[in-house]
C-alpha cells in the first residue's frame, strides 16, 4: 500500500468513515482541480454527489 493509502486508511479507521469515500473524494480533487481547469463548482458538485451517495 502507498503512503497516501496508509494515511487515508488510518484516518478512515480513526474517524469512522469509509476509505472508499475518502479515496473517491481524493480522486475527484486530483482529476477535476489539477489535471483539468474544470470549474470549481463542478468539483463541489462531484464532492456533494459522492457524499450524498455515501449517506444513502
Amino acid at each position, binding site marked *: 500500500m*502507498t*503512503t*497516501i493509502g496508509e*494515511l*487515508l486508511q*488510518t*484516518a*478512515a479507521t*480513526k*474517524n*469512522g*468513515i469509509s476509505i472508499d*469515500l*475518502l479515496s473517491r*473524494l*481524493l480522486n475527484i*480533487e*486530483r*482529476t477535476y*482541480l*489539477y*489535471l*483539468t*481547469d474544470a470549474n*470549481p463548482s463542478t*468539483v*463541489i458538485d462531484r*464532492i*456533494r454527489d459522492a*457524499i*450524498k451517495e*455515501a*449517506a*444513502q
Partner: protein
Amino acid sequence: MRLTKLEMKNFGPYKGVVEVSFDSVKGKNVWIIWGSNGAGKTHVFKAIKWCLYGWEPSPGEKIRRPTSKDAWDLVYGTNIDQGIPPDPYMHVCLWFEHQPETASSSKQLYVVRRLVRPASSRPRNPSQIDVDFEVKINGRINDSPKEAIEAILPVAANQFFMFHGEEIRKMSLKHGEDVQQAIELILDAQTFRQGIAHLATVGKQISRELDEERAKAGDMAQYLDAKHQIEEKTESIQKEITQNQRELEAKREDLENVDAKLRSHQGSEKLMGQLEIQRQQLNQVEEDRENHLAKYDVLISELPSRLILPELQKVLEKKEVQHQRIEEQRQRIAELRGMQMLAARVLKLDTCICGNKITGVEKTHLEAERRHYEDELKQSEAGLEQEDPTYYQVRETVAGLSASKLDFAQYKKELDRINVRIDEFRNAIKKTEKDLGSSDQGLIRQLQADRTGFQEEIARRQERVSSLREMFKTQQDYMDRVERNILRVDRSSRVKQNLERQFSLAQIARSSFESVLEPLTDIKRKVIEVEATRIFRKLTNKPEEYDRIQVDEYYDVAVVNKEGNLLEREKLSTGEREIVALSFILGLMRASEKEAPLVLDTFFAHLDDAHYTNIVSSLPDFAHQVVLILTNVEYQNLRQRASEGFFGHLAQVWQATRDQEKKASKLIGTELLAPISKVVPK
C-alpha cells in the same frame, strides 16, 4: 509506466509521419536522441508534452486549458514561409505500457492528440483549427482521457519529470510559491489542502439546506395531537351514527308494524277517515251558521233608522233648500269680488286693451261702477246665511238607509238551509260512529298517533344521521390534511436525517483530510530528503565535504556540509546547483509514488568532468526509463566519457537531422553506441 512508441505527423519541423520506437530489451532503459541545434531534437520532447497535456508547461507553471494557439504554433509550416501550414492534419500518438500496482497484467495505453477537420483546408490562424484528444486502454476508447493519464502519471509530471536543461537551471535557484504548489501537487498535499477547502464549502452548503429543511418542517407532536383528537371525534360521531341508525331501523320496524295493523283494520280506518271528514264539514257549517247569526244583529240595528227614513227625507229636503240658497249667495259674492277687482285694475291703466286711451269721463264712470260693486259686496257678505251643521250628517244617513236592503225573509231562509245541513252532518256522524265500534276507534286513533310519532321520530333521526355524516366528512377532510402534513414532516424528517448524515460525512472527511495532510507533508519531505541525499552523494564531486540535502517546509533545498552547516544554494557553483536540483527532482519522483519516464533535454552543459561522469554512470539507476536529448557536442562528450556500464543500458539511439532544401527534419535510428575510442570512422 513506460513509453513504448512515439508517432508524429506534420509536427514542428517534421513533415509527414515520423516514428520513434522505445522498444525495450531487458536491462536496457536509456534512449538517446541527438542532433545539432535546430535539427528538431527538442520537438521530440515537445511532442510528448503536447500529446499528453496539449501545451508545454514548465516547472511551477499553473495548469491551464490547452488552446488552439498551442497547437497552431506546432503545426509544420507555421514557422516558415507565410506561416500557413501546407497540410493541417497534424497529430502526435504515444503508446505506453503501464503495470498497475494492484493488477498482475499490464495495460496498453494509446494516446493521440490531433487536428481534425480544420474549418479551412488551408487554415490561416488558430481559430480555423480543431484539436481532438483520445485515449484508448487495451484498445478501448476511454471516456475520461485526462483521468486515464492521471492514473498512470504523477500529477504535474509534465512540470518536473520531462524537462529542458534551461528549466533545471531555473529550478536550481530558490523555489517560488508556484513551484512549491507544483511540488505539493506531485505529493498530493495540495490536493488534500484544496479538498479540505472544498469539503468546508460543501459542509456549509449542506448546513444551509439543513436549516432550510428545519424551517420548512412543522412540529410533528402538534400534528399527532391533532390526529388523535380527530380520531376521537370521528369515533364518537361514528358511534352516534350507528346508534341513530339502529334507532332508525327500530322505528321503521315499529312504523311497519303500525302500518300492518292499520292495514288489518283498513275498513275501520276508512270509516275513521270518513268520520274525520264529516266532523270537519260539520265544523265548517257550524261556523257558517255563527257568521249568519251575526248578520241578524246588523239587521236589527238598522231597523229603527229604516222606520224613520221618510221623516228624515223630508228634513233633508228642507235642509237642501237652505243649502242651495247659501250656495247661490256664495256664488254672488265671488262674482262681485271679481268685478270690483277688475274695475280697480282698469282704473290704474291709461289705455284700454284695445289700444284706445281711457278718458277721464270713462274713468269717472268706472270708479262709480267699482264703488257700486264694493257696496253690493259688503251687503251680500253681511247677508250670507250660516250653513246648517247637521245637513251633511242627515244627507249621509238618508243615503245609507236608502241603499240598505233589509231582507229578513232571505235571512231566515238561509238560516234554515244551514240548520238543515247541520242536522244532516250530525246524523251522518252518528251513523258512522254507530258503524264504527268504540273499541276500534280507540285502537285506530292510538295506531294513527303512533304512526305520526314514529314518522316524526324517523324524520328527526334521519336528519341527525345526515348531519352526523356531514360532520364525519368534515373530520375526514381534517384528517386527510393532518395526515398529509404528518407525511410531509416525516419525509422532511428523513431528508433532515439524510442531510445531517451528509453534514457529518463532510465534516469527518474534512477532518480526515486534515489528519492526513500534516503527516503526509512531513513524510514526503523526509522521503525527498533521504532520496535526494542518496542521489546527491552519488553525483557530487565533493562527497568528503557535503553531507546531505535538507528540504525545509517550503521545499527550499539546501546542502548541509560535514560540519553540519547549512550551505545556501546561491553560494554553490552553477554546476553544483544543477546537481542539487536534479537530486531534488529525482527525490521528488521517488516521493510521488508513481513511476514516470525521465526525459532530460540538454542537461549537461554546465557540468564539470567529475559531475558529468558521476551522472552518466548513475543515470540508468535514476528512473526505470531515461530519454536523453543531446546536442551533437553533448553526444560526443558522452561517447568519450561514458563508462562501459552506461553503454550496456543503451536501448536505442536516434539522430535528428534537417534537410535545408526541403525545410524538414527527420529522425534516423542509428546503431547502438560504443565508446568513441571503439568507433571506427566510416
